[in-house]
């Protein structure tokens, strides 16, 4: 998967490049809108990550130009301005998603993957991670053959993590996906919920599946704890 990052802030560009490369993407970086536009029009990219405030050329016109040239490459906006009008403008011009700075890298990764996954993605009916089995149709989860007694929300949380094993979920994303609470909240609700889920899924088994990535969020992984991002 090839990504193009157009970002003039050197540090941001550097860590995005590093993080995305390490997650298996081929990444090109430019700090100029003109060059970014040129690359986006000629190169074969699967996604463009575009900072809203660019020197020389503003990103609105970059997006408009990309779309005018007939390219349907998905675009993810990064913005330091959190004005609703900006978002609307970006989405209207054909951006696929936006992220407001500051954002967690895991959040960006999740969004990038979600954009790239869009399209004909078939949901499996049965997930299997080591000895954990989740039947999404019957809302049933077993581990080592034993039925796990989960509340509906716990089941939703477990299947969210299990559907994308190895992906780190931030607390905000979990709250949004499981409880539909799409605002950041002061509370440690997600932590408590994950702790209780762990009690049911992991406590009586030697292999711990749900892992905490400190400062970032939670991940469900079959292989033994390798906490690198």
């Amino acid at each position, binding site marked *: 998967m090839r990504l193009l990052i157009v970002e003039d802030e050197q540090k941001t560009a550097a860590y995005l490049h590093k993080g995305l490369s390490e997650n298996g993407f081929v990444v090109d970086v430019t700090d100029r809108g003109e060059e970014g536009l040129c690359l986006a029009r000629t190169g074969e990219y699967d996604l463009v990550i575009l900072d809203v405030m660019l020197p020389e050329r503003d990103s609105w016109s970059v997006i408009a130009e990309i779309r005018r040239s007939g390219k349907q490459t998905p675009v993810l906006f990064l913005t330091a301005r*959190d004005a*609703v009008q900006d978002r609307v403008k970006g989405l209207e011009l054909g951006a696929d998603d936006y992220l407001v700075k*500051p*954002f*967690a890298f895991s959040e960006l990764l999740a969004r990038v993957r979600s954009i790239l996954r869009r399209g004909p993605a078939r949901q499996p009916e049965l997930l299997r991670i080591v000895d954990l089995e989740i039947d999404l149709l019957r809302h049933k989860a077993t581990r080592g053959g034993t039925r796990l007694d989960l509340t509906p*929300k716990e089941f939703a949380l477990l299947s969210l993590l299990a559907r994308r094993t190895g992906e780190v979920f931030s607390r905000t994303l979990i*709250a949004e996906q499981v*409880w*539909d*609470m*799409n*605002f*950041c*909240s*002061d*509370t*440690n*609700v997600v932590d*408590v*919920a994950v*702790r*209780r889920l762990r009690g049911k899924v992991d406590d009586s088994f030697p292999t711990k599946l749900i892992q905490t990535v*400190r*400062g*970032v969020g939670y991940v469900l992984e079959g292989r033994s704890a390798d906490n690198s991002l």
Partner: protein
Amino acid sequence: MSSKGAQQTTASRAAWQSSWSWSITGRLTVLYTCSALAILVLSTIFLYWVLVSNVAKGGEQFLSDKIHVLRMILRERPNNPEALEEEVKWEGTALHFARYDARIVDADGHILTETPGMSAMLPAEVFPAPSGVAEELGDGLEWRSPDRRTYLLRAAWAEVGRFSGTPRLLQVALDVSQADELLHDYRRKLALVLFVGTACAAGAGAAVARQGMHPLRAITEAAQRITPTRLRERIDPARWPKELTILATAFDEMLTRLEDSFTRLAQFAADLAHELRTPINNLMGEAEVVLSRARPPHEYRQVLESSLEEYARLSQMIDSLLFLARADSAEARIERSQFDAVQAIEAVREFHEAVAEEQGVEVTCHGKAVVNTDPMLFRRAVSNLLSNALQYTSRGGRVSIAVEQTADHAVDVRVSDTGSGIDSAHLPRIFDRFYRADRARSPHASGTGLGLAIVKSIMTLHNGTITIQIEPAKGTTVTLRFPLRH
């Protein structure tokens, strides 16, 4: 382009209006002057009219007296022509203020006798029709001679002797040119009086108006003394005349509100600095210490992980502050929709269920109402309140959320807990940003201290209200009131 043009028009109209809007002193002066002028004009007109009618009456009276005298002489002493001669010829010249002429004509039109020189100036034809012998005397006629003198003329028939039949025609004239000059002079003086009087009235009016406006100037000066650094100053309402007391009171109240928001703003800035200082201090310190010597990798990792936690907190704080800033701005908009309040609250309750169970606190929700609000903001408000309530309620306690449609087209959402409650001393500042009632007890309590401020903002966006009731040892109740129509 067109809006720019419209703006310019508005601006120029404003400038035009301000250049034509008079000062109150100016208006009062003009009003005083106009009323003084009106009074002066009316009184001079009246006085002039009195004078004119008096002068006219005097002339008429004089002439009718003369006719009486001549008739008397002709009737009583018809054979004494000297008396008549005396009366006709010399009486008129004896008058010192005006010339008086008399003429006696017989029935055929022959002049019998007249004041010398009368024929040259006053021919017989210019006289009015004479009154009959027995008739009342008619009105005199004012006549202007070719040499621009004004005469009052009268004519009447008179009997000669008691029994003789041939009557005589009497023609008398009074030169009233002098009276005319008098009136003319009087008019000039009246005009002068009018002019000077008006000027004096204008001057006096201006002085009085200025004196009257003095308190306003004084109150302006008092207001000008108040600056951001001297917000404590007040315009004491007791010092001012009755009319300005209301203004002074309103102004003082406005100052109190301003001072309050200034204080809050200053406090907010101080709190913000404090809130930022702690995590940034941790970040700096940890990084510096860990870099000061070579360490095993897991120690670096630990510091980075701890930093991430601090960053997350900072980022969350920025999110909340941005939310508050947006809610404060005038263009903040909300997306209203109708939904079942209880369902939304149930969702929030489910979100907090794990925490509530861990703490051994029972959360219940009852009531029934449909609200017309922004669904996300509604949940956020309830979620913040519930989270607060759970934080202050100890094991075995209860939090109940009641929804109720009130009589006056509003929906109340009441979150009551059986917790320790907040000291009522904190109440005035409880909705302030970063304010924490338990700061002293636990300076690192979870949360950013923005929860209630956000709830307050959400209620303001909905034109709603938030109230807190504290019953010591029993618990706290927070009531959100969402009006159905805005």
